[in-house]
């Protein structure tokens, strides 16, 4: 596949921005500066980056409880994101939603979600709307291996196929739903197998290899855009940290050796090695990109912490829309 240097560097940037955002957010949660629980995307960056590289602002995505990475890759603004994590009025959701409901409708990001499996039905609604309005917009639905056991996923997949909707179901199979290993929650290895039961193509790719994700996602998204209907793309990946927060090592439900093995296949390190070898991005340049991202994150955190909390009067606002 012929991919321009610009596109490669763009994907690298998206991954680095996610990683940096998440590392700093995790520390803020662990130290209690950010309230609530954060589900970090560290280790899974190649999926969001490889998919989102094909999307326009007018394309939509539905996300999950692990949603920061999706919004960063879709072009989310660090300041509004951090302000939301801090519960400030300048946040994406005015502090009302927090990490689990972070969203940006202008970027087509239809929300992180606190309900596992909530995304697929919403995604087919957006895809239906794209089709109905005769646009060539596409909706991408991110969901986990765990979520693929919710009835909502199955209902949405069937409707997508029978209505030939412009939607791509992207399964981020990180091997676990919370503390439950995939082999203990479903009797198949590949969630992509489920696609054939609904009459759509299902493809498995290495979710740590951003190029593999990019290539397969490109095909699925193009098919959807051209009216060829839905498909399911399963990305095999791994959550480097805990279900919530950072720790990740020394936990009961998985061996450290397994975690360390996966960390050797860090999607960012692997991609940087490849770009360096091919002379497309030097190690020095990469380091600069990390530094810039960190500076932006720090600036966003400062902005967020300097922002006011919402006023108590905001409590009863935004429950309904005043119909005009």
């Amino acid at each position, binding site marked *: 596949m012929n991919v321009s240097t610009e596109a490669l560097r763009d994907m690298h940037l998206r991954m680095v921005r996610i990683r940096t955002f998440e590392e700093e957010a995790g520390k803020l949660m662990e130290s209690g500066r950010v*309230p*609530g*629980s954060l589900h970090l995307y560290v280790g899974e960056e190649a999926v969001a980056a490889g998919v989102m590289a094909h999307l326009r602002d007018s394309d939509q995505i539905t996300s999950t409880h692990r949603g920061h990475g999706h919004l960063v890759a879709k072009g989310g603004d660090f300041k509004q994101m951090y302000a939301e994590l801090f*519960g*400030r009025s300048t946040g994406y*959701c005015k*502090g*009302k*939603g*927090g990490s*689990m*409901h972070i969203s940006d409708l202008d970027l087509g990001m239809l929300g992180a*979600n*606190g*309900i*596992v*499996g909530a995304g697929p039905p919403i995604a087919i609604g957006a895809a239906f709307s794209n089709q109905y309005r005769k646009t060539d917009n596409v909706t991408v639905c991110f969901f986990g291996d*765990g*979520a693929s*056991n*919710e*009835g*909502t996923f199955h209902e949405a997949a069937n409707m997508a196929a029978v209505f030939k909707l412009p939607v791509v179901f992207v399964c981020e199979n990180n091997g676990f*739903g*919370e*503390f*439950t290993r995939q082999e*203990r*929650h*479903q009797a198949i290895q590949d969630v992509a197998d489920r696609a054939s039961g609904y009459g759509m193509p299902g493809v498995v790719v290495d979710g740590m290899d951003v190029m593999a994700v990019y290539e397969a996602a490109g095909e699925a998204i193009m098919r959807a855009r051209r009216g060829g209907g839905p498909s399911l793309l399963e990305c095999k990946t791994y959550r480097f940290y805990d279900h919530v927060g950072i720790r990740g090592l020394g936990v*009961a*439900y998985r061996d450290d050796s397994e975690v360390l093995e996966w960390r050797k296949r860090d999607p960012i390190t692997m991609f940087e090695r490849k770009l360096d070898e091919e002379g497309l991005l030097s190690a020095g340049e990469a380091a600069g990109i990390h530094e810039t991202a960190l500076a932006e994150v720090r600036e966003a955190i400062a902005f967020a912490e300097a922002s006011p*909390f*919402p006023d*108590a009067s*905001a*409590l*009863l606002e*935004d*429950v309904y829309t005043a119909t005009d």
Partner: protein
Amino acid sequence: MTTVEAKPTRQLSYVAAVSEAFAQLMREDPDIFLAGEDVALGGSVFGVSRGLLKEFGPERVIDTPISESGIIGLGLGAAATGLRPIVDIMFMDFMGVCMDEIVNQVAKMKYMFGGKAKLPLTIHTMAGGGGSMAAQHSQSLEAWFCHVPGLKVVMPSGPYEAKGLMVAAVRDDNPVIVINNKVSLRMQADVPEELYEIELGRAHVVRPGTNFTIVAIGRMVPESLKAAEMLAADGLDVEVIDPRTLQPFDTATVVESVRKTHRALVAHEAVRFGGIGAEIAAQIQEEAFDYLDAPVGRVGAPFSPVPFSPPLEKEYIPDAGRVAAEVRRILGKQV
């Protein structure tokens, strides 16, 4: 069935009281199993089933896929065929995912079949806000289930109640929804070591008083006790009643109290509009209208989803101060 107010023997946390109830019940009855998301290896994200997998093994302590409808159905089908399941829906908010199973299947099977079914099913879940977990992980939805004939609904207020009510719920031959509160899990109290039951459908006068009746639900019980202390400083002698079970509801105990105090309010964490407080207030005015010196008050959450931002959430969730203020308002005193 009688309530055994057994002698307290040691301090136990709320969370340990729940897991102790599960363990002792499972030792007693081999037909009991526990199923839910991450209840086995993980010991539940709240810790309520910690240690059970080790003692009872994977046949009886079962990690399910993330499939709430399936989980409730598993419990229902097993109960209808002779087992005594306990199923766990991690957060009460997720009951939205399995409402058909609960409302159309679990609640109605016995009646629809002309009484030819016994459904000893316990559905355990966690409700309540306070941890900045936002709109889909903080709700108190007990009123939904109290409205559905065929279900019993229990909301313990502390460790002692949590254990005794769980035992009664599991031994009951009907579907019972047991709703524990996340913030309450940290509470400590005297809890008997032996297995004891707290009778379902019977309220408990937690603090006797003569001037005012507070009917407090779940976590609002400790908050209302604090409010009663605050009001005692003003010379008010407040009675606090913990219904313990919301369905069936012990109207008699509440009415008896109101006939004595002549004033009442109901406090719950759930949204005030359409909350169980509305039903309780209606029952009080139906049964004790002539005894009332003031309209029955209600303290509950305002009419919005639960907000994430800590100051908004603090504003949202009722507490002792709000209960006390409402008592003073009803008495026509300045707050």
